């Protein structure tokens, strides 16, 4: 039923409407095998709705979702054999201990790498004899992460998985994701933490108000965006406003700062006569890309 070339995730026109509110407009998205894709968007953009649709916990209003070519809604159980999921807010049974929770989730999952699980418990510094009731939010989060990672499932669906983790554990999480990728697993990482996405993801999809506004590799996204150029000149800077691709020009004495999209040559030609003492140019960070998409409001 699922050939070896089917992507880990494929959605076609996947949409969800609650009452009169479009939580997700028709979404077409693919996550390839062995690929790590970051899913970005502000609060309420529809990230969690997307993940819950992929899991079959919500029924789509239109369209379909496939996990390795298996329909996520008609054949949910089969689809779930191939994936593991970590929620952003871990809601577990308070009377179970950590070890009991891992045991239960492992049995229901049907596949566990026990050795790897023990290693992860060690690495995430979790005391599994404690009851879930007594765990902090971060520790409950670790429990869900360990359960999902130790399943070694082909696809990891992670919905803001590091909320509540301290920086050391965040590092440990990143290492585990790199291991997963090296082992050939696919990862779909919905996140707010841009540095995390930047460090881990091959591709990024950006969602706003239930619509996909951008998909691509970080390099592609950067290419579409402006470079920041900053120059210190010997003479007063020439007027570059109005040049093709140049925006946001700021002049401060002998210093000039601007954004440019497209070829940089004409700008350099214009600056050269004023005597360039120092020149820096920088690609935008993911944070700047993100803010460029959302900062302007609608």
């Amino acid at each position, binding site marked *: 039923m699922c050939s070896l070339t089917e992507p880990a995730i494929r959605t076609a026109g996947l949409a969800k409407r609650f009452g009169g509110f479009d939580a997700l407009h028709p979404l077409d998205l693919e996550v390839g095998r062995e690929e790590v894709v970051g899913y970005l968007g502000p609060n309420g953009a529809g990230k969690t709705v997307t993940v819950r649709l992929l899991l079959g*916990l*919500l029924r789509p209003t239109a369209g379909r979702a496939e996990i390795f070519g298996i329909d996520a809604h008609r054949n*949910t159980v089969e689809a779930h054999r191939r994936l593991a999921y970590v929620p952003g807010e871990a809601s577990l049974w308070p009377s179970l201990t950590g070890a*009991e929770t891992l*045991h239960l989730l492992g049995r229901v999952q049907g596949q566990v790498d026990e050795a790897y699980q023990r290693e992860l418990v060690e690495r995430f510094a979790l005391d599994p004899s404690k009851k879930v009731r007594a765990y902090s939010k971060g520790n409950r989060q670790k429990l869900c992460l360990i359960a999902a990672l130790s399943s070694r499932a082909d696809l990891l669906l992670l919905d803001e998985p590091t909320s509540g983790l301290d920086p050391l554990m965040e590092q440990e999480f990143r290492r585990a994701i790199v291991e997963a990728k090296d082992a050939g697993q696919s990862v779909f990482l919905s996140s707010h933490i841009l540095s995390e996405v930047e460090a881990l993801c091959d591709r990024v999809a950006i969602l706003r108000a239930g619509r996909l506004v951008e998909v691509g590799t970080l390099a592609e996204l950067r290419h579409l965006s402006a470079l920041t150029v900053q120059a210190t000149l010997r003479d007063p800077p020439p007027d570059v406003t109005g040049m093709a691709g140049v925006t946001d020009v700021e002049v401060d004495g002998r210093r000039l700062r601007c954004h440019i999209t497209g070829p940089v040559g004409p700008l350099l030609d214009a600056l050269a006569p004023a005597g360039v003492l120092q020149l820096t140019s920088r690609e935008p960070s993911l944070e700047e890309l993100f803010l460029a998409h959302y900062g302007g409001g609608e």
Partner: protein
Amino acid sequence: MTGRVVAGLAARRAIRGGAAWGAVFALVVASTAVGFESAYGTVEARQQLVRTLGGNAGIQALFGVTRDISTVKGFTAWRCLGVLPLVGAIWALLHATRTLQGEEDSGRLELLLAGPTTRAGAGVAAMAGMAAGLVAMFAVTAAGVLAVTGTGGFGVTAGLYFAVALVAAPAMFLAVGSLTSQLATTRRQAAAMAGGVFGVAYAIRLVADSGSGLRWLRWASPLGWVESLRPLTGSRPLALVPIAGLTLGLSAAAIVVNGARDYGTGALPASDTGPLRAGLLESAWRFSARLTRPRAVGWAAAIGLMAAVVGLVAKSVGEAATESEGFAEIIQRLGGRSGGAEAYLGLSFTIVAALLAFQAAGHVAATREEEADGQLDNLLVRPLSRSRWLLGRVATAFAALAAVSVLAGLASWVTAASQDTGVGLGRLLSAGMNVLPPAVLVLALGTLAHAVAPRRAVALTYGLVAWSFLVELVGSLVNASHWLLDLSLFHHIAPVPAVDPRWDTAALYVVLAAAAGAISLVAFNRRDLVGA
């Protein structure tokens, strides 16, 4: 400031619940008073009523001793005081534990405690809010009572005293729930402890009123104090002293213990660690059993205890009752054929039927809560189908109900046999099994509500049981129209062992339940999972 917010939140919820139950109380009081006039209009009818009920120790054990029941006010006081305090007490203990321990359990209280208040202050404020709910309950009840002073033939002062008597048990059990909330670590534990207190109080009252010369025992039970108030029939306000003493004493104790413990922990020791008990974690179905077990054990204890007490007193009650003239009539009306003990057991098992139906509603609520709290997500994102999960939960609940129903028959037989009551094991087991079908139907209809309207399922399910219980209660005394009675789940159940079980009705219940269950499985598969 924050204290006022806490008090306001608690008050809003308590007033809503208190006023709603007050309205039920008012309705029952008014309909009883009005219904009495039409049902027992003639002198002969009233004399017959005194003969039947006055001599029926079984009914007296369950609902309290009759007094002046040939008058409107005497009958109304007996009938209402026999049932409403029990309903009110159960509401009160659940409400108190939910308000105090439930908010803490869920972490919501933490948000408020971060404001300018202390934990002790917030505790006092929440209890003040509950007191407001009690006042609302009293006000609405009193309005209902005062509306029928003319029909009832009593004055305003007597009416107000009656309303006080009706809310006395809720007041005491709000205090009981407040204290157990401080002792236990979780809401469920707190509710179970308070429920245990209620069960013991009711059992003592039941023994005291069973006509076995243990009448003094009534003073050992808070519910006995309520009965001793004797509203409308020669008031004895002295009984208000222990009632007020218990309410204020337990409330004060709750405040003191609350101030002395840490947030998020009970005053009683509870362990935060535990060994790996994997036996019931091997599959989703076994895990259902683990989640269902505490609730099932609690109900088994409560219903088993009640059945044991009923069995213990059946013989003496039956003997006392057979001597009365009217008793034969009752048995005949029930279609019965044998002695007093069996008739008494038959009536008692209709109460077991109601309790078992409440247990069924509790299982439905627990299943829904697992979804609402998001715990279910952890299972359904793994290779486990929704139908399989739901079937597991329903099957476990069914097994629990069946076990408790058999236990009820068994427990009553053990104690009845110890007194040489002469009712066989087979008849008492079938009495136990006989109350299973309505509970199973509640389970199935509740599951259907869960599958179709998840956010309303809990209210609908408890509403169905409460409705059936009230219809049975009101309908049995005001010659209610048949279609109204037909809408009660308990009306079609024969009072076994006084008469033979109606297997056709039982079969119909089971078929309906199976149909509702099948539809639930399909419907649950087709909807979104929804949180609280």
